[in-house]
Structures are given as C-alpha cells and as structure tokens.
C-alpha cells in the first residue's frame, strides 16, 4: 500500500486487520491469540513472530548459559575469598573493587574487552557470529559473565560474612577442623541458601545485559531481534520479545521459589 492508496483500500485493510474495533475488543482478541501461541506476524518481514523467536533462541540461550555459568562460578569464588579475607583482615581492597565493578556499564565493559582481546591482542573475533563457533561467543559471554558476577560476588560475600559469625562455625573451628573444611563444607553450604535465591534476580539482569551485549557484538539473538524491531517500529515483534522475556523471568522466579522450598524446609511454612 503506497502513499497514494485509495481511501477504500485503506478502509478495507483496516477492517481486515480489525483496527475498527474498540480497544478492549482488540486487546481480548490479542490475548486470545497469544494464549493459543499465535504472536502475530512481523510487519516488516511477514514472518510469524513465534518463528523468529524460535530461530533466534539458540544464540541467546547459549550466550546466557555461558554467562550464567561464568558469573556464578566467578561470583561465588570472589565472594567467598572476599569474606574470608575480610574476616582475617586482609580484604580491604575487595569492597572498593566490587563497587567499581558494579559501576561499570555492561556496554563499556564489552568495549574494553573488545579492545584488549580483539583489537590489541587479536585473539578473538570482535563481532558477528561467523560460523557459529564458540570463539564468537568468547567475548560476549565474558562480558555478560563478568557483569553478572559482580552482583553475585556481593551477595555471596554478604551471606558468607553473616554465616561465618555463627556459633556453629566457631564450634567447627574448635573441633579442630581444617579451615578449608570449615569454609567450604560448613559455611559455604549455608551461605549458598541465600545466594540461590538471588540467582533468579541475576537472571533477569542477565537478560537485560544480553540485549545490550548482543547488540554490541552483533550476535543474532533475541535481544538483537528486539532492538532491530524497535528500530523498524515492528510492534508485533517487540511485543513478542517482551512477552518472551517477561515469561522467562516469571518462570524462572517460580522455579526458584519451588526449588528453594524444596531445598530449605524452613521456608515452607512461611
């Protein structure tokens, strides 16, 4: 339909798309379709939105899983070290470092890594997905993982500090257990109960970060799809992406709550 479309044609298309109906009718129709798994078609490519989402999903999944693993391992390790050091009085550098880390925008972190490893050392590709090999995920996953690890490190550190002050830790030490056993077997296990609850929140942050990271590194995932759709004013696709993200976050939070109740019987009554 060009600029010179006749009013009749415009009318007939409006009627066909159901744009004549009042807003609540349109909303209910949208809701009904969405519940049946029909997210509509892209205005730009005419492809069903669900199909685009499904085709982009593996990239985002891969990026997020890599980043999630990295951020959890790194975050917990740094958090534990920070707490243990702090108790022994040699950890005064860790808190400022974490604060600085928390203040770095994920995009900036990505650009810095890009410069050091891509431009300077020429170790990794800078952007794009190429043949889809793991090399192309190295920098994006590192960026997102580092970004996510700061929050987890902070939480782990706080939880560990709390646990290390408990009486049973003193008991364990008094029994003459090795410090390593006390820290990892006794303290970390209990601190993880707190840390696990924030993993869900962390995932929501990772999802946000993945939009930025995918755009920065030119990875064709859902985040990039969303940004491109925003640029093209392709509303069905934008809605589809937002819906996907909200559903993921809610789903993960629910799963976390269930897992938490299962792992920690104390919470079940509350």
């Amino acid at each position: 339909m060009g600029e010179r479309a006749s009013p009749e044609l415009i009318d007939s298309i409006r009627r066909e798309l159901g744009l004549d109906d009042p807003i609540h009718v349109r909303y209910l129709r949208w809701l009904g379709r969405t519940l049946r798994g029909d997210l509509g078609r892209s205005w730009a490519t005419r492809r069903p939105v669900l199909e685009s989402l499904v085709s982009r999903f593996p990239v985002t999944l891969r990026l997020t899983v890599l980043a999630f693993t990295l951020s959890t391992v790194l975050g917990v390790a740094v958090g534990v070290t920070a707490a243990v050091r702090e108790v022994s009085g040699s950890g005064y550098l860790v808190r400022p470092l974490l604060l600085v880390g928390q203040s770095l925008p994920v995009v900036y972190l990505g650009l810095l890594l890009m410069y050091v490893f891509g431009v300077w050392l020429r170790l990794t590709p800078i952007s794009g997905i190429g043949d889809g090999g793991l090399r192309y995920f190295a920098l994006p996953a590192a960026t997102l993982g580092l970004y996510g690890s700061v929050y987890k490190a902070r939480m782990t550190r706080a939880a560990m500090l709390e646990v290390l002050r408990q009486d049973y830790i003193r008991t364990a030490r008094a029994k003459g257990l090795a410090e390593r056993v006390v820290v990892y077997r006794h303290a970390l296990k209990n601190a993880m109960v707190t840390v696990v609850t924030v993993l869900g929140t962390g995932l929501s942050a990772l999802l946000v970060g993945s939009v930025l990271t995918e755009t920065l590194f030119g990875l064709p995932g859902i985040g990039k799809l969303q940004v491109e759709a925003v640029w093209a004013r392709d509303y069905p696709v934008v809605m589809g992406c937002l819906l996907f993200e909200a559903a993921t976050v809610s789903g993960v939070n629910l799963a976390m709550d269930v897992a938490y109740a299962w792992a920690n019987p104390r919470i079940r009554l509350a």
Partner: protein
Amino acid sequence: MGLLLIAGMALGAVLAPALVPHPPDRMHLDRPLAPPGPEHLFGTDYFGRDVLSRILHGGRITLGVAVGAQALALSLGVTLGLLAGYHGRWVDLIIMRVVELWLCFPDLLMAVGLAVALGPGVPSVFLALGLVGWPGVARLVRGEALSLREREFLEAARAAGVPTSRLLRGHLLPNCLPAMAVAFTGGMAACVMAEASLSFLGLGVQPPMPSWGAMLNQGRPYLHHAPHLVVFPGLAIAACVLGFNLLGDGLRDILDPRSHEFR
C-alpha cells in the same frame, strides 16, 4: 568520597557552557579522530567535535534526565507506597499487585518498550525511566510505612484527630525520609546507567545532542584507530554511577547503623 565525585560531576554539568574549550557541536573537519592532545584534551570524534566538551554537555543531559526521572519515580512511588502501607487491606492489595506485575518486566526492557511507545527523545527517556523506577520505591516506602503504622506517635496523632492526609504528609512521610534518601541515590545510579544503555541502543537522546551512551555507540566503529572515543565517555558513566553508589553506601551507614555489618 562519593559526594566529592558527584559534586564534581554536577559542577561540571552546570558550568559546562562556561568550562568547555569548544562548543559541543562545533566540527573541526580538518582534524577528525584526533588523539588526546593539548588542544583537545580527550581528542576529537569523526566529525572533529571535541570529546571533552561533548562529555561535559552530555553530563547536563544525563544528570538532568536522571534527576527528573527520579523525581517522578519518587513522587509516584512514595505516594502509592504510603497509601498502601498505611491503609493496608484492599488498597495495599491492589497497589502491591500492580507493583508486582510491573516488576515482572526486567527494568531496562520495560524502559525500551516505553521509549518505543513514546517515541525517541529526551522527554520520553525521562518519562520511561521514571515509570520504570516507581515500583521499587513504592515497595520500600510501603515497608517503612507498615513498620511505622502501629507506633505510639502515630496512634497519638490519630487519637488527637489529625486528618489522614496530614497524618501521611506530616507524620509518616518525614519518618520515611532516610529510606527515601538511600532509594534516591540508588535510583540515580540506575538511571544514569539506564539512560546510557537506552542511548547506546539509539532509543534515548538523539543525535546531534551529546549523550554518554550514544557516544559509546558512535565510537564503536572507530575502536581500532581512536579508542579514546569510547574510553572517556565510558569513564564518565562509570565515575558517575560509582559516585552515586558510594554516596548511597555512605548514607546507609549514617542513616541505618544496623546495616553496617551487612553490605
């Protein structure tokens, strides 16, 4: 420490027109992508615009947007939070369900959605960030209000016949101020970050207006030859966010001694 950083930033932003060596939009087409040097302390971009000048002017926009958005988020959040916490029952139920629904969407993605709906530009960034920020504030203030509701001084005020509206404004609100101050600094840090992210995605402040996030995006293609194009704006964002984070930490230490051990 945080206060110093923020004060410096704010001063730089306010005095930007007087401080900057070059107008932020002035193009020196004869020296594009100049490295940092005595004439251009932070170098120039592709159009030969002075990076330092653009950073200082970008700070005006970023901080302005952040303050505006926080004002919106706080006024909405505090009002609804106080109502929910004080009235309880169905008022609380309705407001908190809305808050929870709102929080389902990751914040930046919500802001992206709102910015799209409102169209790009400074006013919509400010609106989007304000609308994203209020549920967190509401939840915090509700908690404070809940814990204060049954305290004696409020009961005394109620018994003395103080009308509810004055009770909320005159008695409840001032006691929530410490929590609000902490929420404000945290919110500012989040806003600065979010504005940079939105502008990086091209959904926030539009060119040719200077913005830190947009500068990161525009500098990306020149990473090979002119890394200063992204290094300095990124530092500006990081310093600003760090300042607010430090300030927030400091405020919390002063206002809430209990949390001292537990950060």
